[in-house]
């Protein structure tokens, strides 16, 4: 349970909010690189942290992210033309470069310096891996570029997709921290999904529906360990890292690629879910990549030409009671991503946490909220930089291991939960 005031604090991410200021201390996924594939690509509307922006790539291949609306009359620059090193408004031809600087106002005399005083607010936009990352904070607070492993392995080892989720970012993130739903909501997929099935660890999941949980702090967030019974004298541990503010990695299964998510607020009632799969030491196979594109694993099948899932709230997520009855899909909704989205969106655009009835198994969520609250308040009141911006905070892995019962996952898995280039993930 949270008070209404705390719920407001944690869920609102606009420019004048405490959590909005927190998010503005991080590099955030703003687009997939495929959305601006080449110089002079058509511009793309981007809404991020409740700010309406336009992204484009100029003739030199440079990326720009700036206020969507022309300084002249407020027309959307989405209708503009990208050419000759800038983005020109379709209305009266005002032209901007990637920094938001107006470089031409056609109605002014040839030797006018008028445009030098016109600049749209702009933010840095850089490509790291398959993602274009934006930083919406003050320049003096800009952190180092993202160091997450999935964007630094070779291109053939990684795949990222994106989907629109019609809910506040926090209830989506909390689904990523909450390991206890996996044995229920996703139980059907452990046996059938091409990116999950066959791992020995699945048997531990399916034979122990009452996991124990251990939550430990990390420099950038948390490690949440879910413990299930394994062979005599051993436990099966699934360790999920959360890096502030909204990055999680799902514990791996066998030699399947490792997957995870980044939840990015669009506004207070919508978020983007960036979903990745990568393998630390080998290329993804053609079958794996195709399965990801087809919406298996933690990805979604999207309406062609969009990032909206085919299964969405307008069609009841194509719920199928027959597969619910048979157990093929525990909830009757196909696919792990949409199983999560359907329930998280059903909570309402911003779930009222003052009405919750949490249980101790929700301790990971409780602790994550606590860390977010503390960081947002410390930043607002004292300017304290939040955790999760430093490269070492981001060099974490998930892990799935079998340990003797007396061993602590915190101590025994120090290496397993750290990025080690060229070393396979720790997985069962």
């Amino acid at each position, binding site marked *: *349970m949270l008070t209404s005031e705390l719920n407001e604090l944690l869920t609102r991410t606009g420019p004048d909010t405490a959590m909005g200021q927190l998010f503005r201390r991080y590099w955030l996924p703003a687009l997939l690189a495929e959305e601006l594939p080449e110089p002079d690509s058509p511009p793309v509307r981007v809404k991020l942290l409740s700010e309406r922006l336009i992204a484009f790539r100029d003739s030199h291949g440079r990326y720009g992210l700036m206020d969507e609306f022309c300084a002249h009359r407020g027309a959307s620059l989405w209708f503009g033309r990208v050419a000759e090193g800038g983005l020109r408004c379709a209305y009266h031809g005002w032209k901007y470069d990637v920094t938001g600087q107006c470089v031409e106002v056609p109605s002014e005399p040839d030797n006018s310096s008028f445009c030098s005083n016109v600049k749209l607010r702009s933010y840095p936009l850089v490509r790291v891996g398959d993602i274009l990352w934006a930083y919406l904070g003050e320049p003096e607070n800009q952190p180092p570029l993202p160091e997450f492993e999935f964007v630094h392995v070779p291109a053939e080892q990684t795949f990222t997709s994106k989907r629109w989720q019609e809910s506040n970012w926090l209830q989506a993130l909390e689904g990523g921290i909450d390991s206890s739903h996996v044995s229920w909501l996703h139980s059907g997929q452990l046996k059938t999904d091409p990116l999950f099935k066959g791992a020995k660890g699945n048997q531990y999941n399916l034979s122990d529906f*009452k996991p*124990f*949980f*251990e939550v430990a702090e990390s420099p950038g967030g948390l490690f949440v360990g879910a413990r299930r019974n394994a062979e005599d004298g051993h436990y099966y541990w699934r360790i999920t890292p959360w890096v502030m503010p909204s990055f999680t990695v799902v514990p791996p299964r066998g030699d399947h690629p490792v997957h995870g998510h980044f939840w990015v607020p669009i506004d207070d009632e919508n978020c983007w879910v960036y979903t990745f799969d990568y393998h630390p030491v080998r290329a993804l196979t053609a079958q794996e990549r195709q399965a990801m594109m087809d919406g298996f694993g933690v990805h979604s099948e999207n309406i062609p030409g969009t990032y909206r899932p085919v299964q969405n709230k307008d069609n009841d*997520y194509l719920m199928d009671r027959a597969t619910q009855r048979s157990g093929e899909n525990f909830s009757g909704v196909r696919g792990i991503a949409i199983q999560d989205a359907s329930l998280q*969106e059903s909570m*309402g655009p911003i779930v009222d946490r003052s009405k919750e009835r949490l*249980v101790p198994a929700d301790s990971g969520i409780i602790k994550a909220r*606590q860390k977010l609250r503390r960081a947002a308040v410390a930043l607002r009141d004292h300017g304290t930089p939040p955790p999760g911006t430093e490269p070492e905070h981001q060099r974490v892995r998930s892990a799935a291991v079998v340990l003797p019962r007396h061993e602590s996952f915190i101590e025994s898995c120090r290496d397993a939960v750290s990025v080690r280039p060229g070393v396979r993930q720790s997985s069962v």
Partner: protein
Amino acid sequence: MRPVLLNSCARAATAAEARFRIDAPIVPSRGARVFALDGPAEEIVRRIAARPWATARFFGHAGDGRVRPLVGVSTVDISAELDGADVAVLVATSPDGARAAAAVGEHCRARGTMTAGLVVDGGAGALDAVAMLRPYARVLLLTGDEDDIAAVLTALRA
């Protein structure tokens, strides 16, 4: 039958439709019992117990695996104190409270009472305290922030 009303399909997940959710008060937890297992843990629990709580009851340690109310010296019957409890919260800073942890933990196991262990990381003994609590606590939180105990109790409506 296909849904025909807005509120009979998933599109009802709007802020406007949220107005029609039943607004009955949420009942508090039936009861949390909070056990401090060692001296420093008891100091922390005393500070937390001073806040307003719905039904939570707080206990200190008396040595020899016995527990007592925070105020008073006579020990209590752990089993009787767990009557009507939803959860037992075990608070430790070191493995010194192993006997009390075992005593409370075994009672909880026998009664089917949920257990949560909160280890406040005050130093080298924290991981040993985690190991001590692991057999008894279904949920374990290792934290450097004693306010997490209050956060957990608040979230549980204690």
